[in-house]
């Protein structure tokens, strides 16, 4: 069959993409103190600025621990988006200042991806950030993007952590300070570094009963000033001990068992061992990152058109090795729990199945499969979390690995006997927040894309049944399926 080539492949992406709806000189993602300050500074200098923040996120997303580890301890107030929006303005008077300075502000607006041309892609009309609210998604072009996405909770698995009432310190702080929507009454805090004691003092000051702090190391880890403040309260500090399990009932956590044998009655266990800089967007756009144990983990390396401010650029460096501290917790929690402890809540992957690189329970495990493990996989090469998540499904769920990504890397490091920094970071992929199909959808697709959309490459000879080649059916096939292509 003769094809008439025109030098143009209609089915290629070239020139068919939707254009961004707007263009800003600066887009700031995250309206916390650092993001707002960056936006105000730029606006005062005459820059056209868009400031977006995903909060308030929907109650459904909060239930999936997005963006923070809320652990199901929100009150019904979080279902009322107008009240939540009001609460944000009340708690952040700087937002008014920003708007007065000329910053365009969009709350309840998620930045789900940043895209620019580079290796492997040259088809974007300009660099864009993908945005979405609760009705639609759209693209915005920018000259410079400042990420002020903060830090997220680092979660840890122990028996019973997969029930309501186990939550993160950043989530607890947000519920207490911004939304006044914390549903717990009596909390036990894991950790004793600055984050843990700050959280304990905040909760105490808001009238939440703090049942104690649990510290795996022999001594409290916080700064002397914070330790002194803690000493002014009657909050107990359990040293040299770890949590072994959370007991609970229909409403979630009822008590925590400690490795020293104590049982602490509480309705909430707040994991305050550490925060992780929120680098999802940076990583998903293939911008550089580096590991800095003193600043909470992987942080953006920074580049000319992408900057990071606030906690997402790295936690304040105080000389504390966050990675060593986390690893010590992970070791203790592993030593004090059985291998059937769930590591990935979304996909219900146990530690045994993670370390055994076993498939999910809906698949058969014949003898050869059972004989495989991380140990046999390591004979082929270094541990790679992306390979292990494909096999075990750990990190493949609706929370997008927010709850288990870091834990999986730590467990692989421990099991492989390698430093944490040698285990690659499991990739972040857009959308960096779960987004419903109907909201993500481009309902105004350019005609050039619609007209030439093919299921595969639009090569007229590719799918002709072998029996039809050289018969009349070959021409019919092409006429029916590839009209207008290559002619």
């Amino acid at each position, binding site marked *: 069959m003769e094809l008439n*080539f025109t*030098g143009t*492949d*209609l089915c*290629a*992406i070239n020139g068919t993409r*939707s254009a961004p709806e707007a263009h800003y000189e600066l887009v700031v993602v995250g309206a916390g103190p650092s993001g707002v300050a960056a936006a105000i500074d730029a606006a005062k200098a005459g820059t056209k600025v868009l400031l977006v923040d995903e909060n308030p996120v929907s109650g459904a997303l909060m239930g999936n621990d997005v963006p923070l580890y809320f652990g199901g301890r929100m009150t019904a107030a979080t279902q009322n988006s107008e009240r939540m929006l009001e609460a944000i303005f009340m708690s952040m008077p700087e937002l008014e200042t920003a708007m007065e300075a000329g910053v365009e502000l969009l709350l309840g607006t998620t930045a789900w*991806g940043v*895209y620019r041309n*580079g*290796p*492997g*892609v*040259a*088809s*974007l009309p300009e660099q*864009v950030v993908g945005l979405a609210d609760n009705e639609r*998604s759209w693209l915005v072009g920018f000259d410079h993007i400042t990420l002020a996405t903060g830090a997220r909770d680092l979660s840890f698995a122990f028996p019973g952590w997969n029930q309501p009432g186990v939550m993160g310190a950043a989530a607890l702080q947000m519920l207490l300070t911004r939304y006044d929507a914390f549903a717990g009454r009596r909390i036990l805090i894991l950790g004793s570094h600055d984050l843990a004691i700050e959280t304990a003092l905040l909760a105490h000051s808001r009238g939440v009963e703090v049942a104690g702090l649990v510290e795996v190391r022999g001594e409290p880890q916080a700064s002397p000033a914070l330790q002194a403040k803690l000493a002014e309260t009657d909050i107990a500090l359990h040293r040299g001990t770890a949590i072994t399990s959370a007991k609970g009932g229909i409403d979630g956590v009822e008590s925590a068992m400690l490795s020293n044998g104590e049982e602490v009655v509480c309705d909430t266990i707040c994991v305050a061992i550490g925060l992780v800089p929120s680098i999802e967007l940076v990583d998903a756009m*293939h911008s550089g990152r580096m590991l800095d144990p003193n600043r909470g983990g992987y942080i953006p390396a920074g580049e000319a058109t992408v900057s990071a401010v606030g906690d997402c650029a790295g936690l304040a460096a105080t000389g504390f090795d966050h990675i060593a501290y986390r690893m010590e917790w992970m070791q203790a929690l592993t030593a004090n729990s059985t291998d059937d402890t769930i590591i990935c809540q979304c*996909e219900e992957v146990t530690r045994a199945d993670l370390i055994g690189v076993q*498939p999910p329970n*809906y*698949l*058969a495990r*014949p003898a050869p*499969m059972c004989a*495989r493990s991380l140990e046999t996989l390591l004979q*082929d*090469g*270094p541990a790679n979390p992306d390979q292990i998540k494909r096999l075990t*499904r750990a990190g493949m*769920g*609706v929370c997008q690995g927010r709850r288990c990504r870091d834990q999986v890397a730590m467990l692989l490091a421990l099991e492989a006997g390698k430093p944490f920094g040698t285990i690659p970071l499991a990739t972040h*992929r857009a*959308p960096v927040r*779960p*987004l*419903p*199909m*109907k909201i*993500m*959808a*481009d309902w105004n697709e350019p005609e050039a*894309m619609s007209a030439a*959309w093919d*299921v*595969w*490459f639009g*090569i007229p*000879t*590719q*799918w002709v*049944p*072998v029996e*039809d080649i050289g018969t009349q*059916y070959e021409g019919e*096939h092409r006429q*029916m*399926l590839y009209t207008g292509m*290559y002619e």
Partner: protein
Amino acid sequence: MSGSDVVIVGGGVTGLSAGWWLARSGVKVTVLDKFIVGWEASGRNGGGASHYQSPLFDEEQRLWPQMDELLGYPTEHQKERIIIAMTERQWEQYRFVAERHHRLGHPVEVLDVKQVQEAVPLAGDNCFGGVHYKFGGHANPQRSVQAYAWALQDLGGKIVQHSPVTGFETAGGKVTAVKTATTTYGCDAVVVAAGPQIPQLMAQLGIDVPLAPARAEMIITEPAPMMPIGGVDGHKLYGRQTMRGNLAYGGGPHEWIDVDATGPKARPSTPLMRNLASRLAELLPKAAHLNIIRSWAGVIENSPDGRPIIDRLTSPDNVVVASMSGVGFGLSPASGHAIRDLVIDGACSFANIDMLKLSRFDNLESDWRQKRGWMPIP
């Protein structure tokens, strides 16, 4: 040639299947991969296994239902497909293809809107109808590539990862060794199944293999309620419901690119996700509220006619080159068998694959990529 060494360049699904087939015949096999097995297109595709256009079709259909048992590891293979038409034009096209299947003896059934809704609980009344293929199916690409790799190892084959091939040694009209940066692997025969890197590797042997790489994208949702048949697509999308329930779909425009000798520098996805999302929301409206949780891209090499190249060369005469031209995953049980036959017997035992010979491009014009518009965007 039992007992001799075959080195396979490329641990994608085609190379791994070929290695597994050779190991089953008692051949000592070493598979060299630049990174981790199945890391490129083999592990990130739509998982379809219904390639009626191929001379390997019958063998593909014969083997897939047995693969879990033959390999000893789960592939998540599931039978049958339903293709749903969302426009009048698609309805016309899909019925045309159904008619061809009927004539070729492939069992198909045309479904009206009501029958589509009965067979596909996530479909709506917004479709024109569908075609039920009572053949074909789909499997999990990631799990299947690892299954081939492990099965090959269980038969004594070796897999060497993180080892890009840098060149060959030749003597007496044969390749005698394959080289990586650190090691030279002596061999009696070589299979070059390195996807987009094939042209650069084969150029070292003085062989011109016309292949053009391109990037394509997919999306996946959170799990949906399980449908009785997971192999549902149409609306010019390809994809499937996984056994976990996630909806994984791709289709639409591709981007022509160039790759380095050691592979693509990156595999970025783009806002094309939004166009995939709108089509999938139309195809399966009762799933339109579900969250998209990931997107990704892969790099695929394409031959000038879009058909595979599976050929044992005449000089050097111990080299088999194998590119599936962007449609390799589903055909892998059969392509591996064919490659095994070419390596050991010099001819495919179960199908006439002469149409897949490299020599069909002997008179190809040198500007074939430009003529087709298959050039990277400058």
